[in-house]
């Protein structure tokens, strides 16, 4: 079995704090961070954190879910454009899946993303919730 704990742990800065890379030359922000700016080839960058508010560009409702998410199905999944223009894919939780819409405003919340069975490691990270306040 693949060791999920180390793979997940490595991504903590992104999953927990949404750390992205902003390149000096182009000023472009990439999430997840990249070593090389695809636009300029620049490698000089600084860490920035993504804003917590975004707007859905697209979404789906997964109705036939992998067993890992069987207890949570059907669940919504979407791509949001955050207020800084970066794009993030995440589940949309705490919502009526029949009411999710393109253009809907979402807020990032810290949630449990996966459980490696009942005895394995828990993984946490960002999900979207409909922005209501």
């Amino acid at each position, binding site marked *: 079995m693949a060791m999920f704990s180390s793979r997940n742990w490595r991504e903590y800065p992104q999953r927990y704090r949404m750390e992205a890379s902003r390149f000096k030359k182009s000023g472009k922000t990439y999430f997840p961070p990249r070593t090389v700016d695809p636009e300029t080839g620049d490698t000089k960058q600084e860490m920035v954190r993504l804003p917590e508010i975004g707007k859905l560009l697209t979404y*789906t409702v997964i109705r036939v879910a992998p067993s890992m998410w069987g207890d949570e199905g059907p669940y919504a999944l979407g791509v949001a454009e955050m207020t800084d223009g970066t794009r993030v894919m995440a589940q949309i939780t705490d919502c009526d899946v029949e009411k999710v819409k393109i253009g809907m405003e979402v807020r990032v919340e810290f949630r449990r993303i996966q459980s490696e069975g009942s005895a394995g490691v828990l993984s946490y*990270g960002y999900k979207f919730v409909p922005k209501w306040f």
Partner: protein
Amino acid sequence: MREVCVVGIGMSKWGEVWRRSLRQLFVDAAMEAIKDSGVDHLDSLYVGCMSSGMFVQQEHVGALCADYLGMAGLPAARVESACASGGIAVRQAFLEVASGASEIVMASGVEKMTDCSGDDATSALAGAADQEYEVFHGATFPGLYAMIAHAHMDRYGTTPEMLAAVSVKNHHNGAMNPVAQYPFEVSVDRVLGSVMVADPLHILDCSPITDGAAAVIVTSEEVARKLGKPYVKIIGSGLATDTIAIAQRDDITAIKSAGMALDRALKMTNRKLSDVQFAEMHDCFTIAEIVVMESIGLYKPGQAGPAVLAGETALDGKFPINSSGGLKSKGHPVGATGVAQVIEVFKQLTGRAEGGRQLPGSPKIGMTQNMGGTGASSAVHILEVA
């Protein structure tokens, strides 16, 4: 570069082939291709295979296939680019013959997908997406294409009926194809009434899980002529990539790699897209066929859905797409699909398409478009009758 030709084709049984293993499926297709072409040896072998390691815990597929073809010793390698693995195998064979390094190369593809649980198959296929930033969050392949579909519907007014029309057309064609996994007709109502997998995609918008293999013999024109059978030329080959994750793309409603791959393939020829008369396209989901039609420049964005509804891509339409039944009806053993697309174009160009699906008017030029993941890779081949 010299002219490269396809001189023989072979396919295993496709579907839930419980009595054949990975290696047997390959050998079935390979033996048939060798027999069909009349070649007496191979100089090398490429096997397109996406995920035998996850499906049946078997890696090292190039050697395995050469061995069980009775040709241990043969230069052989597996190539992988998710669902575009087969297309890449064809491209590698094309390049090897074009360069003059080899005379007779087999391009093949194989996938044995039913020897694992549905969950494991889903997980293996999900390897074609961004594992950490898509799959981790619960994305499945239908889910990713569903997001492309929603964005496309929102932006261009594409409807569920237009998506369903792709499935209806491909099933109609596949019903005439003896190798098709699901050779039956479906109606728009049946597609729209089938189980929703990931909104707005129903189960009948999705290609199936399939066991199967396909093989073609790629060779120089000199050898092809000597064999004395009808053959076709590969006049263009293009490959392109894109971001692995759809969130990273400027335009979620397009698959840029398909257009780039076609442009590169056309550049090798003195042909334009308007010279191409029909295509096999990667309809892993109905929306994929629509988006690819637009992304390669066949239709303006938003015009592909209405064109499918109007029958423009039917067998008797102005640009038939997926006369084989496509991935939807014929089946989608991921590594084999790109090779099987070439087989269908070969059949159409040589007048060998069975069951009444032979295109009218003896077409001269056809193309294949095969892609990996949500289009993070795309391989295009243009074939012309010799």
